[in-house]
């Protein structure tokens, strides 16, 4: 007799070996394997420990400032209606992660990982950072728990995100400018992994996105999923049901994974990830592996990546330091191939336009990363009826980007 087994829900990943369908895995030197095993064991123990959850929840409430609001962006919605040529558009709501302590969603993950660091008896924490938001969030958690902290940051990003470097140093972190390779996030990640190869027995590597070897993609997703869980509850409170669509920007993909994951099994909620379309679709001009890449292995896992035919990591470009990365989390690759999430790209120009648009319509200056999601949300809202609701993950605030954005806007003005 043949019995039909119910299909596994899409959320039932990763497998015990850290796989999301074909993606994910653990491709690292053996030196790091015992630390990854230790981390997973400690994480699983922590997750079933009510004291851990209670402490994290209390920190998120009193230190991070959660729950962050779900805000109805009425003037942005009106703009989308005007732009649509149809006189109507869906309602755009912003999940205000920009209001979390340190100004972005990154703190949700670092507070969790700092608690794990303490549980493992490690006294030092290291991190990579692109835009500096994860670096700041790690420095913050380290200061809170009294841990030593070293942050690796590409030299190009140190220039682009000077303000965040100052913030990290203020909180006692040591910022190491990485001069190798493209001097951006990819190279900072290499250096953080090299540090961890030597320091693994007393140091925790707090990876900042849903990338890297298992169990990082799972742990970071889980810590960030507080965003999506709150959004579910707040949507029902605000407009009586789940949203019709959820939009988030995707670099490594942690803010997107955090808001998407609690909706993945709700087929009626459309999920849209927005990558960095950069200057053009040409190789080297963008940072959109899900849109233009192929499956490959980078930084410890199999996922869509921008690579040459020889397997060398390709050069990437984005105006946004947080999206300027050639890889993406393996769960996003899984969602893409399963057809569950639609991935698009917004260009540098569209992101810059949306950066000023949100500032002028709503009085909110978003991060340049977030501005990519805003661009797509306005486009999508214009295609939908006015009784529909779109939630955008407003993943970070743009104070850090003011210098760089005004430089880019000035260049653009000069070019016209």
């Amino acid at each position, binding site marked *: 007799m043949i019995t039909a087994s119910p299909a596994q829900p899409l959320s039932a990943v990763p497998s015990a*070996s850290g796989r999301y369908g074909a993606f994910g*895995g*653990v*491709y*690292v*030197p*053996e*030196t790091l*394997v*015992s*630390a990854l095993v230790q981390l997973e064991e400690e994480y699983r123990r922590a997750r079933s420990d009510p004291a851990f959850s209670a402490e994290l929840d209390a920190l998120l409430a009193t230190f991070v400032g959660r729950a962050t609001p779900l805000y109805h962006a009425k003037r942005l919605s009106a703009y989308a209606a005007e732009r649509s040529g149809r006189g109507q558009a869906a309602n755009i709501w912003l999940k205000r992660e920009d209001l979390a302590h340190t100004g972005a969603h990154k703190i949700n993950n670092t507070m969790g990982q700092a608690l794990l660091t303490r549980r493992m008896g490690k006294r030092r924490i290291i991190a990579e950072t692109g835009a500096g938001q994860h670096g700041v969030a790690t420095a913050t958690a380290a200061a809170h728990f009294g841990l030593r902290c070293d942050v690796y940051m590409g030299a190009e990003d140190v220039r682009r995100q000077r303000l965040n470097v100052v913030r990290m140093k203020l909180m006692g972190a040591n910022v190491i400018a990485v001069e*190798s*390779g493209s001097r951006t996030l*990819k190279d900072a990640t*290499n250096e953080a*992994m*090299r540090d961890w*190869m*030597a*320091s*693994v*027995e007393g140091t925790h590597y707090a990876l900042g996105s849903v990338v890297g070897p298992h169990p990082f993609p799972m742990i970071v997703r889980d810590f960030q999923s507080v965003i999506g869980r709150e959004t579910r509850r707040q949507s029902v409170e605000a407009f009586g049901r789940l949203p019709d669509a959820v939009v988030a920007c995707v670099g490594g993909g942690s803010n997107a994974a955090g808001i998407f994951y609690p909706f993945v099994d709700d087929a009626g909620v459309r999920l849209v990830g927005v990558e960095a379309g950069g200057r053009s679709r040409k190789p080297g001009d963008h940072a959109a592996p899900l849109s233009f890449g192929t499956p*490959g*292995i*980078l*930084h*410890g896992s*199999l996922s869509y990546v921008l*690579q040459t*035919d*020889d*397997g*060398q*990591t390709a050069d990437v470009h984005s105006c946004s330091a947080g999206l300027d990365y050639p890889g993406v989390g393996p769960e996003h690759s899984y969602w893409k191939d399963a057809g569950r999430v639609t991935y698009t790209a917004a260009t540098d120009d569209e992101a810059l336009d949306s950066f000023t648009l949100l500032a002028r319509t709503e009085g909110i200056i978003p991060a340049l990363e977030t501005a990519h999601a805003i661009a797509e949300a306005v486009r999508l809202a214009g295609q939908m009826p006015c009784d529909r609701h779109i939630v955008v993950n407003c993943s970070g605030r743009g104070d850090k980007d003011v210098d760089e954005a005004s430089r880019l806007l000035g260049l653009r003005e000069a070019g016209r």
Partner: protein
Amino acid sequence: MTRIDQIFSQLRGSGRKGLMPFLCGGYPTLGATAATLGRLGPAGASIVEIGIPFSDPIADGPVIAAAMHEALVAGVTPGGVFEAVKGVRGTTGPGLVAMVSISIVHRMGAGRFVAEAKAAGFDGFIFPDVPLEEAVGLAGTVRDGGMTMSLLIAPTTPPGRAAAIARACSGFVYLLSRTGITGEGAGPMVERLARQIVALRRETDLPIACGFGISSASQVRAVVREAGADAAIVGSALVRAMGDSAAAGRDPVAAAEAMVRDLASGLA
């Protein structure tokens, strides 16, 4: 029996130890890699390891990472390294293993990569970023090609796991002489290494080669005589010597040969 097996069998039969110099493929030039290959056997190398340049070598320290970067900037590809090796590879001489990231192997396809390496004259592979759990499919492809596969065992690897890794290897196991990345800074942790080798000998008959942090004849001696390894692997020091020599307008091939000759004095 693969050539790697034969080499270790002969070494053991005569009570000798092996030296495994590492060259970065295409650094300072592909010509230098090819020319050096022919000179290292007489200088005392049992097996030569050639690193296939990779854009993101996370196990490598500044010397090898920079050499790989320079080689890539100069346009070196895996196919280019294979061609250069093929031109000088005889039927005799030292064994030849490729150290290559899984990123490259995956992208080219394991079957094609193994076939091309074999056609170029390689005898085996070291996969520095493939732990035991991800090695299953690769092991079959490598075995079918009649080649050897060496995985890493680290100081942080628990004994039971080390035994399982050794069982998955062929040719030799690659035991890291310390935590951390490749490079000359901290030397091998000889006492810890000796204990780990004793434990590993109870689990495997495969030869044990040690690398990372070994840069002088005295460190070679410590690893093969005090710690009891079958072979010592020297990478960064040799890559640096070749780079420095080329930068000073001298012959990097001669520099490599001289250094290997000196390192081989530590085997005695």
